[in-house]
C-alpha cells in the first residue's frame, strides 16, 4: 500500500464509514441479549405505562385543547397514544446513547487503538459509528411501533414513515451525546454515574413523559431547556398529529442540538489519545 494516492483517499473514508457501520450492526445482531432486550424493554414499558397507567387516565382537558390547536386529530388523544411516542423517544435515546458510549468498552478491550491508528479521518469513524447507532435505534423504533399497534395505538404506516426523520435526528443527538460522554469518562464504572445523572434526567425530564401544557412553570422551563423535549414533540406531531410545541421550533431545535453535539463529540474524539 505504499503511497496510497489521493483519489483513493475518498474511497478509503467511505470504506471506513461502512466498516464502522457494519461492525455496529453485526455486534448488535450477535449479542443475543441485546436483541431480546430491545424487544422486551419497550414491551415492558408499553405494558406498565401504556396499559397500566395510560388506560386509566384519559388525556386531560388542557392537552386536548392544545391538540385541537395544532394537530389534525381534534379529539380523542389518549394518554396511551401520547406515551407511545414518548416510549419511542426513550428507547431511541437509550439505545443511541449506549451505542455512542460503547467506545469506552472498545477502549477497555483494546479495539479502540486499532481504530485510532487507522489512516482515516476520525470524523469518518464518528460518522460511521453514528450511522450504525441510528440504524439499530430505528429498528427498535419499528419494534415498539409494531407492538404498540397491537395494543391499540392509533396511527398509520404513513405517519410512521413521516416521523422517521424526527426519530433519526433524536437518535443522532443521543449518539453524539454518548460519544461525547465516552471521551469524558475514562472507565466503565463511571458510566453508571452518567446514566443516573445525565441519561435518565434527559429522558424523564422531557416531554416524553410529562405533558408540557399541564406542567408547572418551573418544570416547563426545564422541559424547554432539554433538546429531547423538542425531538419527542416532533415525533408526536408526525406520528399522531398532536404536539404541544411548535413543529417548526421542534425541528430547528433538535437539528441544531444534534449538529452541535455531533461537532463537539467529533472534536473531542479526534483529539483522543490512548
Amino acid at each position, binding site marked *: *500500500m505504499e503511497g496510497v494516492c489521493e483519489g483513493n483517499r475518498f474511497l478509503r473514508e467511505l470504506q471506513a464509514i461502512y466498516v464502522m457501520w*457494519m461492525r455496529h450492526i453485526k455486534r448488535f445482531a450477535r449479542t443475543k441479549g441485546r436483541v431480546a432486550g430491545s424487544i422486551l424493554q419497550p414491551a415492558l414499558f408499553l405494558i406498565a405505562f401504556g396499559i397500566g397507567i395510560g388506560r386509566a387516565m384519559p388525556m386531560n382537558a388542557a392537552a386536548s385543547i392544545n391538540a385541537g390547536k395544532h394537530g389534525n386529530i381534534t379529539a380523542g388523544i389518549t394518554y396511551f397514544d401520547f406515551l407511545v411516542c414518548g416510549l419511542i423517544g426513550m428507547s431511541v435515546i437509550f439505545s443511541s446513547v449506549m451505542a455512542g458510549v460503547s467506545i469506552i468498552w472498545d477502549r477497555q478491550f483494546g479495539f479502540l*487503538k*486499532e481504530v485510532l491508528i*487507522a*489512516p482515516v479521518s476520525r470524523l469518518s469513524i464518528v460518522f460511521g459509528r453514528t450511522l450504525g447507532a441510528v440504524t439499530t435505534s430505528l429498528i427498535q423504533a419499528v419494534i415498539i411501533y409494531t407492538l404498540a399497534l397491537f395494543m391499540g395505538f392509533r396511527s398509520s404506516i404513513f405517519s410512521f414513515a413521516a416521523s422517521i426523520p424526527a426519530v433519526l435526528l433524536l437518535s443522532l443527538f443521543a449518539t453524539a451525546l454518548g460519544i461525547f460522554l465516552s471521551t469524558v469518562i475514562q472507565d466503565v464504572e463511571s458510566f453508571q454515574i452518567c446514566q443516573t445523572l445525565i441519561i435518565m434526567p434527559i429522558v424523564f425530564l422531557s416531554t416524553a413523559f410529562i405533558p408540557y401544557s399541564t406542567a408547572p412553570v418551573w418544570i416547563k422551563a426545564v422541559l424547554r431547556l432539554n433538546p429531547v423535549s423538542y425531538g419527542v414533540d416532533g415525533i408526536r406531531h408526525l406520528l399522531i398529529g398532536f404536539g404541544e410545541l411548535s413543529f417548526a421550533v421542534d425541528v430547528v431545535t433538535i437539528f441544531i442540538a444534534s449538529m452541535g453535539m455531533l461537532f463537539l463529540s467529533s472534536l473531542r474524539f479526534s483529539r483522543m489519545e490512548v
Partner: protein
Amino acid sequence: MKGKGKMMIDARNLTKVYPNGMRAVDGVSFSVKKGVIFGFLGPNGAGKTTTQKILCTLLKPTSGEVTVAGYDVVREASKVREVIGVVFQDPALDEKLTGRENLEYHARLYGMDGKEIKRRIRELSEFFEFGDELDRLVASYSGGMRRKLEIARSVMHDPDVLFLDEPTVGLDAHTRRKLWNYILEMRKNRKLTIFLTTHYIEEAERLCDEVAIMNKGRIVAGGTCDELKRKFGRKSILISFPSLEEKEKALRLIENISGIRIITERDRDVEVQHPDMDEIVLMREIQNTLLNRVEVVEMRMKFPSLEDVYVELTEDTDGGGSGHSIGGFVVRRMMHVG
C-alpha cells in the same frame, strides 16, 4: 519513501511528560535502519510502550522530533499511519467478529479493495496456518491464535514498519517459538523494518539485529547484541578440573590472588572474575598460580550473556539505592545504532 538518510525510524530528544507530571520518556534519541529488527529492551515501566505509542501516532510527544519512514509523527500523522502496522501489548481485536472479519475490516480502513483483501487473507492464512479457524468468532480463540491473528492483521496492508509491543507475552514456549519463526520469516520475504518491544532478553537475542536498552525513561545502551556484551559485560574465566580434590586444591591457591571473586562453583568447575584486572592478565595470573601444582582440564574465557548486561544496566529500577551503573554510563547524546 522520503529521504532523510535511510533511517526508517528517527527519534531525537524525544520526551513525554504525562499530565500527572510523570516523565515517562526523558530525552531519548535513536534511529533504526531499513530492514532491521530493532529490539527495545527494558523492565516494566521503563518507558518502552510510551515510546512506541508516540512512534505510531497514538500519543503526542511533549518535545523532540520523531520521524517514521521520513514522515513526522505529529505533523504528518496520517502519512505515518498509512505505512505502519502495529501489534499492541494488550489485545486489540474485536471479539464479536470472526477472524476473517477482523482482517477484512482492517484492510478496508487502509483502503484495500475486495479482491485485494481476499487475496491477502488467503496468503496470510496460508503463512500463519489458520486453517478454518478464521471463520470462527475471535471470542473462541486461544491466546496463541489471537496473537497470530493480530500479527497477521498488522501486516494485512503490507506496511513498511511493523511495531510489535511484547508480542509473545503470556504465551507458551511452543507458540512463542512459532511466532518468532513467523517474524523472522516475514522479514526475510521483504524489506520490512520491525520495531520490537520486549522484556524477554531471549526474544531480543533471537530476533533482533540491534537493541537499545531502556531504563527509567532513558536509553542506557545500544548496539548489536554482541557489541553490548563486549562493551558492558564483564567476562569471566571458567576453569574445569579432573576431580573434586583437584578443584579444592586449586581453590585454596586461587584465593590468594588478591581481589579475585569466585562467581560460581559447580561440580568440577569454577568461574572467577576480577573487578580491576584485564581478563587476559587474570588468566595468566591463574595459570602461574596453578602451574605444576594442580591438574587443569580446561581454562577459557566466558562471555557474558545479554541477560547479564541487561540486568547490570537496568538494576535499581525502583529508585534510590547506590546507583550501580557501569561506569556511570548514561547516553544522552545521539546514539546512532549500527
